[in-house]
């Protein structure tokens, strides 16, 4: 499964994931009340400098992640220009740009395992309360493992469609795809039950603690 994390390591990869996520949360709280375009512009430049310090790869990947945002920001800016509130539009667009880019930078420089570790840390109090949090990790693993498998099946359905029809494949393929997923799920559930079921995920967890 292809995560967004950059292979090429930077100093930001070495910063603990929890600290980076806390920094983003803090940035959101600090930036939202600011209404001066110059201050927000400086924040955006600061984020750009962070990307720069993480290397050219990070800069390129960061820009690619921001691409879907461009149209949205253009619409927001256009509305504000129409209303004669250019300054407010600029503040809002820069704020969105800076915060999204900053949050993306955490994703780009943090491995999936480290993100999972933060999640487990956040869940620890619930685990101690006796909630079955062990199965969450299993659900995450199961979904991640299933996506490429299911994706291959979707490709096969599309190929089969193209072999028979001249029209482009459309939503008609949703039904067979859902059916394949449900049949897979039934088999996986049987296999899981044969190996001790969901109860086993919690007992092994407790033994480890």
């Amino acid at each position, binding site marked *: 499964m292809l*995560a967004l994390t950059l292979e090429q390591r930077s100093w930001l990869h070495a910063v603990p994931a929890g600290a980076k*996520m806390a920094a983003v949360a803090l940035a959101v709280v600090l930036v939202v009340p600011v209404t001066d375009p110059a201050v927000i512009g400086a924040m955006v430049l600061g984020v750009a400098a962070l990307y720069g310090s993480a290397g050219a790869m990070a800069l390129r990947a960061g820009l690619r992640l921001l691409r879907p945002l461009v149209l949205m920001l253009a619409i927001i800016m256009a509305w504000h220009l129409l209303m004669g509130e250019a300054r407010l539009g600029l503040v809002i667009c820069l704020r969105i740009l800076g915060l999204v880019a900053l949050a993306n930078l955490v994703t780009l420089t943090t491995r999936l395992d480290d993100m999972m570790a933060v999640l487990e840390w956040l869940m620890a109090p619930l685990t101690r309360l006796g909630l079955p949090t062990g199965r969450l990790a299993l659900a995450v693993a*199961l979904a991640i493992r299933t996506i490429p498998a*299911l994706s291959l099946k979707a490709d096969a359905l599309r190929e089969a469609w193209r072999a028979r029809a001249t029209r482009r494949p459309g*939503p008609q393929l*949703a039904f067979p795809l859902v059916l394949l997923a449900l049949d897979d799920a039934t088999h996986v559930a049987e296999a899981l039950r044969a190996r001790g079921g969901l109860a086993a995920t919690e007992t092994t967890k407790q033994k480890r603690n």
Partner: protein
Amino acid sequence: MERSFVFVALFAALIAVLGLVPSFMLITGVPISAQSLGVMLAGAVLGARRGALAVLLLLLLVALGLPLLAGGRGGLGVFVGPTAGFLVGFPVAAFVTGWITERWRSMDLALVAGVAALVGGVLVLYAFGVAGMVLAAGLSPVQALTALSAFIPGDIIKAAIAGVVTRAIWQARPDAVLSRAH
């Protein structure tokens, strides 16, 4: 118990896979992904609670850094962007779709699931999406709705498809439709 657990996990994967394929194009030229179809189906097939859990699991994977949203978007950035309202609305949309499908049993399932998907996956989802844009982008609700209007016809079509697909699944695998299995 294992079965409904695995169904939730696999439906999260299914919504992701449906988002990866740009499924069909309207005359307007707006690319419509099948991702919100997946959200509607999660509610209609799995029911309110499990449908919402499947969507929450998908959002968790996105937050962990996987590019699973329509168009290959993902990571923490999407949760602070102008369309974050839709992400908050996703599990609620699945819940409402499932809630209606579970309770309204007197009519044909295609009609029930279609209407449920229209209420949950379009009305409720857009309410959250518009609220998000009002908060993040400083637009008025009418302006936000205008900006989104190109996507609404596609989503109405998807609700109809969700109804037909749900009935087809019910006919092919009656006991897999957890929203009706009790």
